[in-house]
Structures are given as C-alpha cells and as structure tokens.
C-alpha cells in the first residue's frame, strides 16, 4: 500500500497549495531572467511509490521519453532529492528562449552547452523556489547541494535505477509552464526521505492548525 494513503485530502490540498506558492516564486524569478511572462497552471500532485513514477511519466507524456534532467539534493527536516525532468525538446526550447535574449555565444561554447547550462539554471531556480518555499512555510530551513545535470537521454530505465534507492514515497508534482512565445513543460519530482515524511505530516498539520 502506498504511503500516500496516509495523507488526507486536506494534507494533499495543503501541499498542492504550498507548491502553487513555490511555483509562483519560481515564475517570478524565471520571468526576470528571460523577460517573458510565465503563465502558471494548477500543479498536479500525486503521492506515489518511487517505482510508480516512470509509469506516471509514460502516461503523461506522449512520446518515446527522453529527458534532460537536473538532480539536486536538499537537507533539512524536509530532506530528499529533487529531479527536474524536461523532455529533451523542451530543454532546447528553453535554451532558445535564453539564447534569444543573450549575446552571441562565444565560439568555444556549443549549443549543447547552452542547453545544459539553461536546464541547470532553470532547475536550480525551480527546485530552490519550490523546496525553499515549502520549507519556509513549514518553518524549516533547507540547504542545497549544487544541481547536477544528467546527460540526455534519460530514459525510463535510467530513471527507474535512480529512483530504486528511494524506500518511501515520491511526492510527484507536475506543472506546465506556458511562456509567452511557446509552451514548455516539465516535471518536478520531490522524493522525500523516509525520515522527513513523518516530520512533513506533522508540519502540514501544524500549518493547517495555524489557519483555523
């Protein structure tokens, strides 16, 4: 049985709302960097066992999945690993958005490098804003490791291998970023460590209690 069953609808709603707030922060930061408005949609939140995540992605994305991925660990009472997955094509779109605003590339910097740097930067912004905001509202403070770019193609099997070490549940957040010029979407997965889940449930309850 998934531990997700142990989270009530109200607790899930609270986490969705916290994520919504986190993405709002991320959008503001992104829009400043690329000077484009980012239109947010309602984030989708699911609580899955780690091994269920690849199937979820398969169901959500109609394509032979190949991703660019940024991985970043965070530490605090709220502790775990975050993965930002962008379908490979989305990474290129984002790089072009950044590239369009930037000066011409130095000759030694290849287009692939720009894409990699763009995806890492976006991952850093989104992960930092979301995890940081959730932690802040839940009265925690998290530290981050430097984001790590995982070279494409990240396919289903490599994702399964990475998630295999996670013993507990994955909080799966999906959001779609609509930029003014084109739609770009990606997935953010937060895989909370086993030890932090009990804290999170208690912190969410405390947060809910503070609203009464």
């Amino acid at each position, binding site marked *: 049985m998934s531990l997700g069953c142990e989270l009530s609808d109200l607790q899930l709603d609270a986490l969705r709302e916290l994520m*919504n707030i986190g993405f*709002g*922060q991320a959008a503001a930061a992104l829009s400043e960097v690329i000077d484009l*408005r980012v239109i*947010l949609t*309602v984030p989708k939140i699911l609580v899955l066992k780690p091994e269920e995540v690849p199937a979820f992605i398969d169901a959500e994305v109609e394509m032979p999945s190949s991703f660019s991925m940024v991985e970043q660990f965070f530490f605090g009472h709220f502790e775990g690993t975050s993965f930002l997955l962008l379908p490979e094509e989305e990474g290129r779109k984002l790089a072009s958005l950044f590239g369009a605003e930037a000066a011409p590339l130095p000759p030694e910097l290849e287009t692939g490098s720009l894409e990699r740097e763009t995806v890492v930067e976006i991952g850093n912004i989104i992960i930092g804003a979301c995890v940081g905001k959730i932690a802040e*509202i839940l009265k925690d403070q998290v530290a981050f490791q430097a984001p790590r770019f995982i070279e494409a193609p990240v396919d289903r099997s490599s994702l399964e291998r990475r998630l295999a070490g996670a013993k507990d549940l994955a909080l799966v957040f999906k959001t779609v970023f609509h930029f003014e010029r084109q739609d770009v979407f990606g997935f953010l997965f937060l895989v909370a460590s086993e030890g932090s889940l009990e804290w999170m449930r208690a912190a969410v309850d405390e947060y809910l209690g503070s*609203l*009464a």
Partner: protein
Amino acid sequence: MGFKVLIVDDSMVARLAIKGIVKDSVDSLAEASSGEAALDLLAGGREPDLVFLDLTMPGMGGIEALKAIRSGHPSVKVAVVTADIQARTLAEVRACGAYEVIRKPADRAAVLALVSRARGEGAAP
C-alpha cells in the same frame, strides 16, 4: 445586511487561510471553489461587498472571473490573492479592475487592512 465577503479558490486550504483571517471582521462569509461557482452565486443575487479571488484555478481562470465580475457586478470589489507575483501579471490584474492584490501566503495584517479599507473604515492608500 452587513459586510459580505466571498472567497474563491480551488484549494480548500487557501480558502481556510483567508477565512481564518477575516472571519471576525466581516458579517457574512461565502466560499466558492471555482470561478464558475462564484459567478453562479453572484447571478443568484448573493452579491458580496468584497471577493477574494485566486488566479490559478482549473476551468475558468482568475483573470477571466475577474473580468466577468467587474463587468457584471461593477460595485463588487475584487481582491486577487495569488502566488503569481510577476510584474506583468500584477499589471494585467490591476488593468482588469482588481481592487487590490494580496500575495500568497496571505499576510494577516495586509488582509485585515484591506477589509478595513473596503468597509470604508480605513484611509484609502
């Protein structure tokens, strides 16, 4: 009669947050979980004095709901409560006639000051 408030947000938690702040400062509270439901309430003659409106909702979004309320019920003040704090979004919201913008998570003092102002008890900014 009294001062009537409507809170519109798809998140029950977000509605709870606003409700918890304003419950002792208003005379009547109603809730709606979507823009469509809010418009139904207004069309049914339950016109509030102040609406707290989320922007990011499934179905009819907050901007569309804001436009509809301002167009059909111009005397109703609409305070947008949003996590989307981009300058362009705030400019659009204000251009659509929002009375005020409250940033999520809602700050208690800011919400109470807004209610007070909307009731005509406080000085306009």
